[in-house]
Every structure is written in structure tokens, then in C-alpha cells.
């Protein structure tokens, strides 16, 4: 399992910086927002927490695309399924490495992008907290989506379609917490709920993902 984690991280760093790319996408989406909605700073500062959450979510989603697809194409998944490693564990490791290479950098980069969108000063802490709490859930749910669409050519877009509705609760609570934080209100309730979702998905989703993966490999 540590071997798998190390390999995935190594691949992420080597394969054209797979790990900077989620970040770059986040950056670009955030930069495109002023171009599309116009440059008024009060407007931007109102929508900043939401845009940052949405950008982070999309960056996660895009990098999920090949989380399992590459391993499927070159036969690694077939071999892993016959290896003495429970598939649940392997998929948890995959989700973890996805979070380390995508979610974590997003969390760290968010404050900088917050500056660009005029995020209220009080909002930074809660934005980071909500992202740190929420992005693991995004990775775990995403792994489920990736397992569902493994082996389907052009699966990327289908996966987005399947995964995005599953992201809704996480997004609502996360963005709500960030928004309340930015407005100086108490973000306690949504944060707690967000933490609940994250813990729940981490505990349960790997089983669903492994079950689904066994079906698709068949």
C-alpha cells in the first residue's frame, strides 16, 4: 500500500507535473471569472468564496479523469485486482494520493486567489478551513465516479455528469461556511455538517468504489 502511494505520487510529479496542473486550472478559472462577469470589485468580493469553492471543485473533478483510466488502459488494474491487496485499500490509497496531489495544493493556494478576487479579510481562515475539510470528500466521491466509468471510452465527461450531483451537499456546506466566514457570521454549523459528510464518505465510499470496480473489471 505504501508502494502504491509512493508510485502514484511519483507518477503525479513526473507525468508533466500532474500535480501542478490541478492548481493551474484552479488559478485560470479564478482568473477567467473577472473577465466573464466584469471587474467590479464589490461584485467580485461578494461572489469570491463561492467562485473559489466552485473552482476548487472543478479542478478536483478534472484531475479525477485519469485517476483510474490510465491504470486500466495499461493493464495495471487487472494486475492489482489479482494482487494480495484488498481493492478497498488500493482505492483508498488512490483517493489519498489524489487528495495529496490536488486537494492539498488547492487548499494552500486558495488564499492567494482569494486576494485576487477581493475576498473579505475575515473570510480567509474559514475559506481554508472549509476547503481543508471538504476536499477529501471530493477525492473520495470522485474515486467512486472514476471506478464507475473505468473502461468507458470518453468516460471523462460521463464521469463529470455522474459525480457533480454527488458533489452538491459538499459544495453547499463548504461554500456556505466560506460565505458566512467572509460575512463575519458564524460558520460553525455548516462546517460541522461538512465534517460529517467527509467522515461518512471516507468511511463508506471505498466499499462502494471497490464493489463497482470489481464489476467493471469483469
Amino acid at each position, binding site marked *: 500500500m505504501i508502494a*502504491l502511494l509512493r*508510485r502514484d505520487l511519483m507518477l503525479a510529479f513526473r507525468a508533466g507535473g500532474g500535480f501542478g496542473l490541478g492548481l493551474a486550472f484552479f488559478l485560470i478559472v479564478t482568473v477567467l471569472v473577472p473577465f466573464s462577469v466584469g471587474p467590479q470589485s464589490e461584485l467580485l468580493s461578494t461572489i469570491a468564496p463561492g467562485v473559489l469553492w466552485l473552482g476548487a471543485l472543478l479542478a478536483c473533478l478534472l484531475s479525477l479523469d485519469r485517476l483510474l483510466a490510465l491504470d486500466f488502459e*495499461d493493464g*495495471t488494474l*487487472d494486475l492489482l*485486482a*489479482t494482487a494480495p491487496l484488498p481493492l478497498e485499500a488500493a482505492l483508498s490509497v488512490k483517493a489519498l494520493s489524489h487528495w495529496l496531489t490536488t486537494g492539498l495544493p488547492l487548499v494552500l493556494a486558495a488564499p492567494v486567489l482569494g486576494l485576487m478576487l477581493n475576498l473579505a479579510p475575515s473570510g480567509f481562515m474559514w475559506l481554508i478551513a472549509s476547503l481543508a475539510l471538504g476536499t477529501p470528500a471530493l477525492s473520495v466521491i470522485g474515486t467512486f465516479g472514476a471506478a464507475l466509468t473505468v473502461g468507458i471510452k470518453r468516460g471523462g465527461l460521463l464521469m463529470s455528469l455522474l459525480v457533480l450531483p454527488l458533489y452538491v451537499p459538499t459544495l453547499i456546506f463548504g461554500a456556505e461556511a466560506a460565505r458566512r466566514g467572509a460575512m463575519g457570521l458564524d460558520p460553525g454549523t455548516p462546517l460541522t455538517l461538512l465534517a460529517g459528510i467527509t467522515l461518512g464518505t471516507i468511511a463508506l465510499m471505498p466499499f462502494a468504489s471497490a464493489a463497482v470496480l470489481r464489476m467493471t473489471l469483469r
Partner: protein
Amino acid sequence: MTLSIQNLAVARGGVPVLGNVSFAIAPGQALILRGPNGAGKTTLLRTIAGLQKPLSGVIEGADETIAYAGHADGLKAMLSVAENLQFWAQVFGHSDIEAALAAYQLGPLIDRLAGTLSAGQKRRLGLARLMVTGRRVWVLDEPTVSLDADAVAMFAAAVTAHLGAGGMALIATHIDLGLNAQTFDITPYRATADTRSGASDEAFL
């Protein structure tokens, strides 16, 4: 322990392909699977390796003992030869990759990224992977594709050594490998009406 297959029926894409297949492989033995294109060799091997469920029949002695090598090699283009091997060794709880490197003369290529190997070199690396799994049963689907004569000899030597150490091998191939082993032709086992029971679409007939 013997690998034994009894009355196995297998399907691909929901369609029964083979029925009533039975054979056994004892430690130290190899079995060469033959049959024309589309006969169902790949399907049979994937079933035995546990990648798909049989329609019916029994597979004994296959749990956690099989190392499978199919049409794809499971190599990462962006990892070096050594890193690829090491990864699979660790997954299977081993660490020594020297023997495998030596058996397929991969020494000179050790630091090359797997993506820059030629077709035959890639395949050699894929076969070397088998040796680091420590598994007793090798289930191989056309292992010598794009290998040259020297490399086929390396492969034959590796299999012979594996059998000598009490291992087993089940190999589907169209060419002569120069192995001292029995042959099993699957052509007669093509699924017929009476051996087709259990197909997933049976209920619709």
C-alpha cells in the same frame, strides 16, 4: 498444490464461449493452451486468474497463487525499468528484483523510462514482472508477442526454472516456445447448446 479445473464454462460479453473444460496442472508442470483466434483462450485465462466469474464449474487451487500476464503489460511509461519492477515486487511483498533483471537481460536498460523501450523490450519487462510476484502459478496470454528468438529463449529458460522450483504455468500461445510441456487444445470445447447453461442471458431464451 495442484491447480485443477473441472467442467468450467466461461462467457465473454454475456455469450458462452467454452463449456465443459477440465484439466489439472501439478507442481512442476506447464500446460500450453492452443486454439484458433477467437476460440476463447483469453477468456479462459481471465476466468482462471479470477478477473471474471465462470458461468459454472469449479476452479481449485487458484486463490492468491496466480500471477497473470495478459495482452497489456501494466507498465508505467513515466517510471524507469527498475521502478516499475520494484513497484510490483512491493505490491506482492517482495523486494529483490535482481534475479528478474538478470533473467531477461534488462541490466543495461535499468534506468530507461519504460515508455522509451521498444515493443520487445517492453514485453521482456512485462515478463520479468512475473518473477517478482513470488506467485506459484503463472497464467500467461501470448507471452512471446514481439519477442525475438533470443528473448523467447530467455522466456523458455525462465519458465523452466520456475517449473524446476515447483511452480506451474498455463500458457496460451500460437507459436512454438521450445518448452517441454503438454498441450491442451480448446477447440473441441467450444460452447454448444447443452454446455451453455448458466449464461447471463439464458433467462431470455
